[in-house]
């Protein structure tokens, strides 16, 4: 008797589950479709153009003689738009307002050599790394000659300069608490501070320190060959968009496997074959 009741009960529950099954699957599909429709990928396809936020920083992105944007990030963004079969629109944005501008919807994705950090990841989503970089040190010969890195630089008499909103500022604040830190709005001002001898040193993403030492060998030098704070760069996009994250991750995967990303990185960072394209 109990076995029959149990069997009848089991059949009843299974048939109910079978009835409920297709309904919940349908709801699941509807929810999935709604999520997919909201994705920035769909927005880009509807619009017919990919809007990319970036900032000028040699050689990631800069202006050439014709006034057009060139650089590693520009190449990456152009290829991405080509693969998505849409037009490309660059939205040059001031760097320390670039994440708020992304969140405000001024563009779809940041492709600007943004280093992946936990603090930034709390506000935006990052794709997989498509490039890596490290920072280097640039120091004024007159002020910093003979000082050893990093111990002699953690001193109350030492002044650092950095670009507001960049990862070097955070690195300097964390590792050189005793030194004074001066923040500036753009990279040019930071380098000029060190060249003029108003700051002992600055930390900046390679290859900028290397280029500056090459151009001003009697004024500045590199106190260390150490690759400081090696980091990875990824695209930044708004949170809550799994489709876009998946698409960009796989685009990076494909282009890394094919060697295209490395080849472009070597072209822009490995030397200066592009130097005649910019007005100098």
């Amino acid at each position: 008797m109990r076995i029959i009741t149990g069997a009848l009960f089991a059949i009843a529950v299974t048939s109910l589950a079978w009835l409920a099954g297709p309904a919940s699957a349908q709801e699941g599909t509807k929810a999935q479709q709604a999520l997919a429709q909201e994705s920035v990928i769909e927005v880009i396809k509807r619009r017919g153009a990919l809007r990319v936020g970036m900032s000028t920083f040699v050689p990631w992105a800069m202006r050439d003689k014709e006034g057009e944007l060139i650089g590693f990030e520009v190449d990456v963004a152009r290829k991405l738009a080509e693969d998505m079969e849409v037009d490309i629109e660059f939205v040059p944005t001031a760097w320390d307002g670039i994440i708020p501008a992304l969140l405000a919807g001024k563009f779809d994705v940041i492709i600007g050599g943004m280093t992946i950090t936990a603090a930034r990841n709390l506000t935006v989503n990052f794709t997989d790394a498509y490039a890596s970089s490290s920072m280097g040190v640039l120091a004024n010969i007159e002020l910093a000659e003979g000082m050893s890195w990093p111990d002699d630089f953690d001193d109350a008499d030492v002044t650092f300069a950095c670009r507001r909103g960049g990862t070097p500022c955070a690195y300097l604040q964390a590792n050189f608490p005793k030194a004074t830190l001066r923040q500036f709005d753009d990279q040019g001002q930071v380098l000029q501070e060190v060249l003029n001898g108003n700051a002992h040193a600055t930390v900046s993403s390679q290859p900028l320190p290397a280029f500056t030492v090459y151009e001003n060998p009697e004024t500045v030098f590199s106190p260390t060959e150490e690759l400081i704070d090696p980091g990875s760069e990824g695209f930044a996009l708004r949170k809550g968009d799994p489709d876009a994250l998946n698409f960009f991750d796989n685009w990076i995967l494909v282009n890394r496997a094919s060697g295209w990303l490395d080849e472009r990185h070597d072209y822009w960072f490995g030397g200066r074959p592009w130097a005649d394209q910019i007005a100098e």
Partner: protein
Amino acid sequence: MYPDPDRPRRVGAIDVLVLLVLLGAGIAIGLRVSDVLVYRWDWHFLPQVLVTRSDAGGWRPNLLLEGLLTTLRLSLWAMLIASVLGLALGVLATRVRLLARLVAFGYVGLIRNVPPLVFIFVFYFFISSQLIPVLGVDTWARSLGEGGRTAVAWLIGPPDLLENLLSGILCLAMFEAAYIAEVVRAGIRSVPPGQSEGAKSLGLRPVQAFRLVVMPQALRAVAPPLANQFILLIKNSAIVSLISVQELTFIGTEVAVSTGRRFETWIVVAAMYFFLCYALAWLFARMERRSRLAYAR
């Protein structure tokens, strides 16, 4: 009371002396700067960032000149909107009705007491990011044909970055309107009450009296401060570079970073702003002189 501005001008000994002193000071500063500043001056990049060959074979403006044109367009549109808004608010501030005066003083008080930079950030990130997508500016700009896009590019700016440009224009206009409202209010108050009484005794209705008798005198009285505000608007337009409008200051930063010639670029940008503001000041001085001759007291 002051020397006749239309007298013939002659260059005297004092003029030459002052010029020599200024030249000497300039050279001394230049030498001192080149001692302190470790910098290699190089102006060869300048023609390339000003003009470049267009596809048709002629010349077209390049980066810095394009930035200058954007600043010009930005300032003109902001001036237009700010004048209309400022005029309306200034007139409201002199009304007898409390509501009119509250609106005017509320607007002026709110905006004048906030620094322009802070106002622009707040406006851009909180207000315009909600307002402009609702207006559908981006979809409209994309739906334009070739002719429409060229027209918009000539009148306002590149259609791709239209939303940002509109935010910048609105920001500047709202900011300047507060100051223009105060200037207009001062002008209206400076007209003697006998004028409006005389107009009413002639049988003009209050609105006509205001429009035909008080306002022309008020505006003529405050023409110099109004001109001042317009010139200030051009200089304040540099602030919208922080919301990434592609005007002269923003492009100046990009050129300075891309070419590495920082000081040369900034000197050229400063010179461009100077000539723009000077040209406007000269224009206003001419208008003032002509209006003074027409209504000689």
